[in-house]
């Protein structure tokens, strides 16, 4: 049987190759924090970290992830001990109904790492990426929020007090 690792725990896959990573996460470890929105890679509600990179879990067959490490929203914090990005979302009211929030937060965590790695975006140009509002808006465009909490989501990400946060490097203004 094929296995993958979700938030550090081994998960055995079912034997139907059609099962997506999203459906696997929600059904077997019953980690329902990861949400099914459009199921077509358009809304970002299903965003998780696959071997550290943010991806749409609805567009990936679970069998393709054999041996991979998946981090979901449940794996970011430790119970009441929230991840810094989660704390920032609470502080800045970065949501209304909350359905898109796990995807937004996983996406933001992946995005901060991408900026840290120096990966450019459509608004970066030829120089070094910084964590400006324009950069966050562009880089988070794969996560829709039907309640329209975008302004506060950007505020929360700008204010994230994650360890090694880009803010310390003076990139944010």
């Amino acid at each position, binding site marked *: 049987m094929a296995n993958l690792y979700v938030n550090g725990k081994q998960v055995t896959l079912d034997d139907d190759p059609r099962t997506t990573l999203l459906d696997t996460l929600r059904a077997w470890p019953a980690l329902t924090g990861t949400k099914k929105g459009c199921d077509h890679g358009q809304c970002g509600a299903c965003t998780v970290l696959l071997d550290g990179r943010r991806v749409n879990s609805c567009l990936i067959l679970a069998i393709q992830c054999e041996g991979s490490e998946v981090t979901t929203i449940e794996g970011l914090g430790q119970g009441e001990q929230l991840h810094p990005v989660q704390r920032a979302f609470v502080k800045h009211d970065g949501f209304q109904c909350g359905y898109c929030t796990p995807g937004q937060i996983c996406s933001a965590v992946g995005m901060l790492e991408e900026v840290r790695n120096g990966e450019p975006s459509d608004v970066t140009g*030829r120089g070094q990426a910084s964590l400006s509002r324009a950069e966050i808006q562009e880089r988070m465009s794969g996560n829709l929020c039907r309640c329209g909490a975008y302004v506060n989501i950007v505020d929360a990400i700008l204010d994230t007090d994650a360890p090694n946060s880009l803010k310390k490097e003076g990139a944010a203004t």
Partner: protein
Amino acid sequence: MKPFEYRRIHGVEEIGKGDPGQARYLAGGTNLIDLMKHEIEVPDRLLDISRLKLATIENGEKDSLRVGTLVTNTSLASDARVRQTWPLLSAALLSGATAQLRNRATTGGNLLQRTRCYYFYDTARPCNKRNPGEGCSAREGQNRIHAILGTSDHCIATHPSDMAVAMVALEARLTLRAADGMERELPVEELHRLPGDHPEQDTVLKPGELILGVILPAPPPGRQIYRKVRDRSSYAFALVSVGVILHVVGGKVESVRIAFGGVAHKPWRARKAEAALLQKEATEANFQHAAEVELADARGYGSNDFKIPLARRTLVATLRDAANSVEEASA
């Protein structure tokens, strides 16, 4: 999703002569899995190639770059060599999709992604690309995103890739491997077809032929600009896009490459416009003339009529930007 057999391969030699037949190669899956959910693609087998050792970017001969087919769109756009020497390609990649999709989508998969024509996706409506002979719903229907060049009576769909537009302007070449193991090279410009009588065939690839990678030759001199016009400022397909590489010396166009996206069934190399510009003064009037020459045969289908002036203006504006920045750079 229809049932299928899944097989993961670890070397191209595991591809059998009969492969893939009704099978499909699976890499990032960002387009294929979606189409399978819609039951537009119904392969009976998936050959998962995602663990082949084809995910590296290496320096090639004559200052070229060899990009493995499994290099993700993120990795290719972020590569320091690409950003420095082929910025057109990096810009085109970053203008497409979202970070989540680019993290997963591969170079070969990006080239082979299918049209986003509404009627191709709507299985309740006729579509010659989906079911040959059924008719085209787009010609008389909603065709705001559809083609204005190289269309046929049977299909007016566009190819949705930004990356491919840059690769055509850069005269990139594909390395291909047929199911019998034979390898060949093919210019990216020749990969995609015009719809003609067979809109169900997107490309000239033979059954079972696999893209191994892309060779980026050293680019011609000049400023590289990718400009994309779309309904939203992020995460939207191009209504019109243009990739330009313009080299102006002493006020004259020394060399120029132009490719359009969003206007045809394939990335559209604008050779007529290039010919009209070569050795001419880099002036607004000449840019206008070149755009008009290229678009002389363009036709709209109602809701996409706006694309003809949009393509003209986008090309003129991009040439102007490229010419101005060249002057700044040499000043």
